[in-house]
């Protein structure tokens, strides 16, 4: 055990954690919006809209995140036409490409989580709202969405942890996130176990925090 290396690499890894957290928080927020939109589309009775939303979630859940991030960073960046448009400003940055890939990916999983949450809401709750004369828009915003959020908390907590681990793939498109820096230190010192313990410890600490926050929220909103 090389304790000195562990102590030396800790601050480097910690500053890389900031990038990991940035990637995670931005993609989760964008992903939540995408997920909500597609969950609502999934509940639409129009078969085309419905199929489109299903296709989106099937595509992003059936392929590895690595493929998605490669298509967006290497694939789209290679189209000559795109280089002339304003999109190139975004697509030439690995940071934004990673965020696009992560957001679309977590959006697909979130849409499934929210859809099943909407579907498990008892019809009686909606009927009760209707019989009180509440407009259906208000029923949706004030009754269905809060219940759906409560229902989907445990599953969404898992999704946050999966996404936290997913951000490690940013290192494959040259971003120096926690895993990227860990790999760099490993390949220069050839001390994989020490670096794994430190980097893994940081990841475990983050999952621990997420896990407990979700648990706290679950208790707070339980009924």
């Amino acid at each position, binding site marked *: 055990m090389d304790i000195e290396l562990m102590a030396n690499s800790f601050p480097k890894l910690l500053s890389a954690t900031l990038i990991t957290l940035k990637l995670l928080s931005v993609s989760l927020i964008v992903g939540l919006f995408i997920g909500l939109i597609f969950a609502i589309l999934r509940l639409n009775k129009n078969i085309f809209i419905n199929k489109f939303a299903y296709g989106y979630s*099937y595509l992003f859940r*059936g392929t590895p995140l690595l*493929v*998605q991030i490669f298509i967006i960073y*290497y694939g789209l960046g290679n189209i000559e036409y795109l280089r002339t448009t304003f999109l190139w400003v975004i697509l030439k940055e690995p940071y934004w490409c990673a965020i696009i890939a992560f957001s679309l990916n977590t959006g697909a999983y979130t849409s499934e989580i929210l859809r099943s949450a909407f579907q498990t809401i008892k019809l009686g709750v909606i009927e009760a709202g209707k019989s009180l004369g509440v407009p259906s828009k208000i029923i949706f915003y004030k009754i269905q969405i809060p219940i759906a959020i409560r229902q989907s908390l445990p599953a969404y907590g898992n999704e946050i942890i999966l996404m936290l681990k997913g951000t490690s793939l940013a290192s494959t498109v040259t971003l120096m996130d926690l*895993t990227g820096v860990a790999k760099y230190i*490993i390949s220069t010192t050839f001390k994989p176990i020490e670096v794994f313990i430190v980097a*893994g410890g940081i990841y*475990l600490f983050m999952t*621990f925090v997420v896990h407990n926050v979700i648990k706290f929220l679950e208790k707070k909103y339980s009924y």
Partner: protein
Amino acid sequence: MELLAFGDTGWGDELFYATLMTIAVAITAMLIGFFFALIFTPLKLSKNRFLNLIANTYTTIIRGVPELLVIYLFFFGGSAAVMFVASIFGYGEYIEINAFITGAFSIGIISGAYSTEVFRGAIQSIDKGQFEAANVLGLSKFGKFFKIILPQTLRLALPNLSNVWQITLKDTSLIMVTGLVEIMRQSYVAAGSTRDPLFFYSCAAVLYLFLTFLSMKLINRLELKYSRGY
């Protein structure tokens, strides 16, 4: 389309063999995962606190740390560990571990943690009366496990195991970093030499979609088979 031709002019046959490699790695990893689950599920269910702690440490670490980091650990640390063990037996030469073994083993350890949780959940949800009834009938420990508990566990675990399989299949794409020529690595090589990354990574996406679709169909059949009589 000619990029996908079989033979020397296209990448069709290379991608085909790469797909077979992905399937082989995924199945090997899944089996290694079952092996780990076989060890750690009893530890999780045991009443001994210490054994519980070992199993919980395993599943917590693996499920809380990114797959890529685990792969790097085995990729860079694997041959050192094997050489260390070999040196105890007096073998001092350099040993290089095959990329297939490194990949399948690291993905297997990850898949094993998920399988352990699935089996634990399935065994715990079996009605207590089943255990008692087996005891009353005077079945031996093995008879109880293989004839009563295991068949019911399989039925309950199958839907979740199919999720683990999908995760494992998609995780195999990560072992491209070890240099093993599976779908992702082959697409990377093809994209590099033809300068058409969009096309080849889309091919990879289609191949993965095909694999997940196919395995879903097969697993649905298995589920039907095991839920006969329910």
